[in-house]
Structures are given as structure tokens and as C-alpha cells.
């Protein structure tokens, strides 16, 4: 029933006080601003860098008292961000584009997953290695993701009508019980679960077949960007530091996650595998050169093309790099 010690306000205030003593910057402890950070899913090493930032006091050094709100099946990210209950949320370029089309004043201020994590998972005995392999197969997915599959098909000259779409819940059971030949899922969750359970599986990352779409993007409202700039810069700065530590030792990030959330029922082995598998999605030559979270006019242009295939017409205005530019000076 009680909150883990490291998530309480007192912990942050204590570490914040410690931060004053140790850092030359000397941020006064009483200035800690409360900030709510809305994650896109249940706690897991998917957000490992953020947990490191919290544990090591990177945010308290910035004068922020950040609480991490987890998501869930019925906890969409956009409502708390649009209503100001959360300062920043984790979204994805397509979700953000849709929300903006519905009137939400969002901007993408940083990009955690440079490569989109969507993948086609199949059993190794009956693999899908290329988009052409999808022809004549049954794919299990949420029908809401049909535009995603359609975009992949268009990019690779496959007729979507040659694929049988089976509406399934988001879990690996339909593939394992052979109700379907493949699943549309994230590279880092269901395939990892199958591997840990001893089910030999193969994944085809959609990003390797032209599906360029930023994921795990940080979104904030135009109002926040204009009026709470310092808080945003501090939050993203902590994120960058946390994720830099993460990539240096993903096993440690996985173990931290398991320890921080004893009530989440996390399996250390699964978390370690997931932690390692999301590294190639989040870190690239671009981030090595410019820093975590970065995006360029070129990557934005590629995203705009993919979004057009998804039926979303957006301009480069959806992205705002000014916060990152202050972070990575």
C-alpha cells in the first residue's frame, strides 16, 4: 500500500537537499517545482532512462520534483497533457499528429525512439522476413492499426488484400497457438516475452522497410513551451543524462526498474532483454553526434512522408527543436 521510498516527495526533497550540497550550481532546495511526466504505458525498462534520472537526482539538480505517472490500456497520454495535468507526455508522431488534427496544441520536443518499434513477429519455423512474405499469411493485430499495415504495404508494393487480418488482443497467445502466422507488435515487448518463454521467434522491424516514424516522442503544449520553458529544458536535460547512463549499462537499468517497482511483477530476465533490444531503436549515429533525443530536418521530412501514407497531412511545425537546442548547447 505504501509508495516505494524513492517515489515519494520526501525522497526528492532529501536528494534535492543533497544535490545542493554536492553541486556547484547550488539550486536551492525550496525552489523544486512539481512536474508531472505522463508515461505511455505501464512501468517497465521501456522508460529506464527516466528512472535513472529520478534515482540519481538529475531532475532535482535542475530544481524539479518530477512524478512519473504510468499509462495503461485506458490511460491515454493526450488528455492529461492537453489539460495541463502533465507537463510532458510520451507519445508517438502518428498519435500526436492525430491529436493535433483534433485540436490539441501539441509539439514534439524530443524523440526517444529514432527508429519505430513496430515489427512483424513470427515463429522461426514459419518466418516473415520481408514484407513480401506477408502475402497469403494471417496477421494478428488490432484493427485500429490497419493504416500502419497499409503504409508498410504501400512502401513495399504489397497488396494489403492478399493479407488476412485477424483482429486480436495485444498478446502473443494467438501466434503461439497458431491462430495467426504473425503479429503486428513492438520489437521490444511480445517478441521478448516469447523468447523468455522459450518460443523461437523472428522479427522484421518495419523501420528497416521504409516505415520512418518517430516513436516514444516527448510532447508538450504550445503554452508550456512558451511559458514553462525552464521546466521543460530541465526535464529533458534530466532525461538525456538518464538515457546516457542507460546505454552505458542496460542491465543496471533493468535491475533498477525491477527494484523501483516491486509491485509491478517485473521479471529481471525479460527486463534485461528488453533493455538491450531497445538500444538500436533509440541510439544511432545521429544521437552519437548530436545527443539523445535529437532530430533533423531530414528525419522530420521522412516522418512527414510516412504520416502522409497514414492519412495525416502535417508540416514540419509539428516538431519544435528549440528545447533540445537549449539542452544540448
Amino acid at each position, binding site marked *: 500500500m505504501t509508495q516505494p521510498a524513492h517515489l515519494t516527495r520526501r525522497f526528492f526533497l532529501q536528494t534535492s537537499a543533497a544535490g545542493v550540497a554536492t553541486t556547484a550550481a547550488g539550486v536551492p532546495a525550496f525552489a523544486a517545482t512539481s512536474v508531472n511526466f505522463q508515461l505511455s504505458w505501464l512501468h517497465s525498462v521501456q522508460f529506464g532512462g527516466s528512472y535513472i534520472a529520478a534515482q540519481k537526482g538529475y531532475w532535482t539538480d535542475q530544481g524539479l520534483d518530477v512524478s512519473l505517472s504510468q499509462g*495503461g490500456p485506458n490511460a*491515454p497520454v493526450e488528455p*492529461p497533457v492537453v*489539460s495541463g495535468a502533465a507537463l510532458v507526455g510520451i507519445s508517438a508522431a502518428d*498519435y500526436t499528429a492525430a491529436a493535433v488534427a483534433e485540436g490539441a496544441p501539441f509539439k514534439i520536443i524530443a524523440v526517444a525512439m529514432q527508429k519505430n518499434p513496430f515489427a512483424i513477429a513470427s515463429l522461426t519455423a514459419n518466418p516473415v522476413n520481408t514484407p513480401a512474405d506477408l502475402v497469403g499469411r494471417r496477421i494478428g493485430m488490432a*484493427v485500429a492499426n490497419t493504416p500502419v499495415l497499409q503504409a508498410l504495404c504501400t512502401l513495399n508494393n504489397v497488396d494489403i488484400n492478399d493479407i488476412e487480418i485477424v483482429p486480436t488482443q495485444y498478446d502473443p497467445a494467438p501466434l503461439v497457438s497458431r491462430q495467426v502466422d504473425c503479429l503486428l507488435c513492438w520489437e521490444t515487448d511480445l517478441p521478448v516475452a516469447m523468447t523468455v518463454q522459450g518460443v523461437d521467434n523472428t522479427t522484421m522491424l518495419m523501420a528497416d522497410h521504409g516505415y520512418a516514424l518517430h516513436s516514444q516522442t516527448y510532447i508538450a503544449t504550445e503554452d508550456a513551451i512558451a511559458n514553462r520553458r525552464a521546466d521543460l529544458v530541465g526535464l529533458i536535460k534530466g532525461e538525456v543524462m538518464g538515457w546516457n547512463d542507460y546505454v552505458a549499462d542496460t542491465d543496471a537499468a533493468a535491475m533498477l526498474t525491477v527494484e523501483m517497482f516491486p509491485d509491478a511483477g517485473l521479471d529481471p530476465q525479460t527486463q534485461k532483454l528488453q533493455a538491450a533490444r531497445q538500444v538500436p531503436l533509440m541510439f544511432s549515429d545521429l544521437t552519437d553526434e548530436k545527443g539523445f533525443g535529437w532530430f533533423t530536418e531530414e528525419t522530420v521530412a521522412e516522418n512527414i512522408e510516412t504520416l502522409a501514407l497514414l492519412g495525416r497531412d502535417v508540416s514540419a511545425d509539428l516538431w519544435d527543436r528549440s528545447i533540445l537546442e537549449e539542452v544540448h548547447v
Partner: protein
Amino acid sequence: MTTLRRVLWVCAALVVWECVLRMLPDSLLISRPLAIAGYVSNNAALLARATLETSVNAAWGFVWGNLAAVVLGTIMTVFPSSERTLSALSLLVFCVPLIASGPILRVLFGPGVGPQITLAALAVYYTTLLALLVGLRAVSQSWTDLMRIYDRGPVSTLIRVRARASLPYLFVGLQISAPAAFLGAMIGEFTGAERGLGVLTLRAMRGLDSDATWALALLSALIAVTAYGLIDWLGQRMVGYRPVILLSAPAASTRRSTGMRLIEMGCTTALVLLLWQVSMDAFDLNRFFAKRPGDVWAFITDAENRNTLLSALAETLSFAAPGYLAGLALGAGLAALLVLSPALSRATMPVAVALRAVPIITTAPLLVLAFGRGLIGTTVVVAVMIFFPTFVACQQGLRQMPGQIVDLFRSYDAGRWHLLRAAQIPAMLPAFFASARMAVPAALLAVTTVEWLATGKGVGVLMAMTASTSNYNMLWSCVAILAAVAVAVYAAVAALERAVLRVYASEQLS
């Protein structure tokens, strides 16, 4: 002796379960009892904390939800003129699906247990209210006449006559509530809760951890069965009297003029729209996700949107109708069967309670695997989701048979069948119709869940798509149209009910 025999039966079933699965080694979806026991012993502390969290939230939801039902029921009985409006409002609130209410509750309550408790309360207030209203009316006409002769008002009648008569039905409501509150608290955790059995279930499903999934399902079922049994025991102790014969003259047909009805309907609709607008404004909910009546109206006046919505609705209704009928038939049929063969009752009840207490995301994949994604599969899943209230209510209704009538049938050497057909089923009718009304919104919510999980068609998919498209206009239009359908079907069932009960239980017609 019977306890020993029951224990032996359970052990035998577990051994068979274990052996069958050992012979099917590649079955990853169904766990062996020993593997489940292993998971439980390795994670005992985690499971204990999660169970406590979910149970406490469910208990608060149970208390608040049933309290709301009792207050509403009392108001409706004391001021009969308020009944139509209040019951329409209760129905409409019940019709709002989690996908629409979840984000609103989370923004209103912030982190914490508020949404879980609220959703548990919302899951129980409606069924209890309907059961309670039947009970408050299950009084002999002679008693109410007597009260009237002595010039006693409705409050006095409520306290001295109706309250006591309502007890068996109130306990039906509470029994239906026990697993429903637990499920509501679990589903409420999907709105971003940090801990609890719902969170663990979600993770186990995605992690293909079938030992954990089964352990959690069995644990949830066990808690629900225990709570159900406890209320049953309490009910039998507190309702310390036998059912009596309710003599009531067949009611005369009292048709109100069509004009009056239209005016009444218009007023209720206006009130609903006003409350919708005012409550969202009062809490200053952002228009992005909390759509007002005006937004929905603007959205559905667009022909393209309207066509999408209506064709999805047609698909949904074509699945909902067979599911609704199958659920009612299953519930009532099972209740009747158990009267014919009481021995079956003890064996079936835990399964029935379990099916009600385990989240559909756990049961649906297995049901879909067994019955497919076609009409049969979806009908089965919907029927499983809604049969329970009917089953419990009908079972209680059958028990309302006064002993003298049973004695009469016995003395004429009438068979069980004859007794069931000529006496018990008529006695069950008020409870059956109450559950048929309860099942209307439940079936619509169930079918949209099935559409999201298994068929990929209909209004359920339009609503589920909101998660990625932020098309909250579509979501709230779906909510509005489902609510309208629920009200219409409810009214139709109620009309049928009045026609039947006019003959069999006229005391129910106020």
C-alpha cells in the same frame, strides 16, 4: 462426509488437469496446477500486496455503489413521480464505457485509487438498484391498502412494509455486486494504477506468462466466490422469514396518452443533455477529450460521420441481439436447471461467479480459441459476460416460491417439472424481467468489448480507435448512440414486462 467427498472430487479434478496437460507439453496457454502453485509460492508477497490493494478498492466501490443504489431506490419509492427520470439517468450513467470515463476519472482524481473505486462503484450501483426496486414492490396489495386505510404515507409504507419485503432482493443485488465490484476495481487499474491484480494480469498476459495469468485468474475467482458466499450466508441469516403468497389483483391497463409520453420523453432528454453539459463544465474538463452535447451534435450532422457510425451500429446490434438472448437464456436456464437438480448448484456456482470475476481480457482468448471469431464465438463471449446477474436473480426468484404452494403441489403428487412450470417460473418472473432490463446496457458494453478483442468490427472498434486517433468526437457520438439504443431496448423490455406482470405479479406495477 459431504465435505470430504467434495475435497476428493476437487483433488481428482486437479490430478486429471495436471496429467492431461503433461501429455500436451507444447500447450503454452493453459497451465498445470503444480506450475500455478509454484508461481503462487514464489510470488506470495507480491500477490498478497496486489490482492489487498484491489480488494480494498473493490470493497469501497461496493459500499459506495450499493449505498447509491439504496438512496436512489428509496427516493424512487417515496416519490414515484421521480422514478422514470431517475431510472433513465441511472441507465445512461451505466452506459458510459471505460474508454470514455477512464481518462476523465484519471484527470479528475490524479494518481491514486479514485478511479478504481469509482469504477467499482459504477459497476455495482445499477444492478443493485434494479433488484432493490423489484424487492420494494414485492408486497401484497392488502398490506399497502391497509397502510392507506390508516392514512399512512409512502415513507411509513416504505419503512414498515417495503423495506422488509425488499431484503431478499437487496441481497440478490449485493451478491451480484460482489464479483462485479472486484472486476470493476481490477479494470479500473487499467487507467494507470501503479499496483493491483489488474496491473499484474495485464503484464502476465502480454508476457505470455500463463502460470501467472492462471494464478491471478484463480485468485480473483477465489476472492469473488468467498465474498459471494459470505453475502449469501449473511442474507440467509438476516432474511429470517419465509416468502409469502403475494395476492394482487391483475392491474387494469393504464395507458397514458401519446402526447403526455412525448412531453415526458422530451423533458427527460433535455434534462440529460443539460446535466451532461453542466457536469463537464463544472469540473472544467478540457473539450479535447470531454465532448459536450453540442460537439457530438455538430459531429453527427456531418453525413459521412453519421454513416460510419450507423453502419458500425448495425454490425454491433447484429452481434448484440444473439448475445443478449443467449445470456438471458443461459442465466435463466441454468437457474431453472439448478432447481430441478440442486446437487448441480454447488458445483456450478463457483464457476459462474469465477466467470464474472475474471477480466474478459483473460477469458476471451481462451473462449475465442475454443469457439472462433464468428457469430458463435462472439455470442458465447457476450453471453458469458452478461449471464451472471440473470442467473443469480432468477435463482432468487425461484426461491421466492411460498412453501404452501409447494405443499399444495406435493399433495397432488405433481412432478418437479410441473411445479417449475406452473408455480416457480411465474414466481421468478419479476426477477427475470429485472435482470432482462439490467442485461440491456451490459450486453451493449459486452459486445463492444468483444468487437475490440476479437471481431474488429462495429462500434467497439470505432471507440477503441480513439486511443490512437484522439477522435473523441467519434467516441462520444458512439457513447450517445449506444445510450439511446439502450434506452429504447430497455423501454421495449419494460413494456413486455408490464404486459406479462399485469397478469402474474401486478404488485410490481406502480
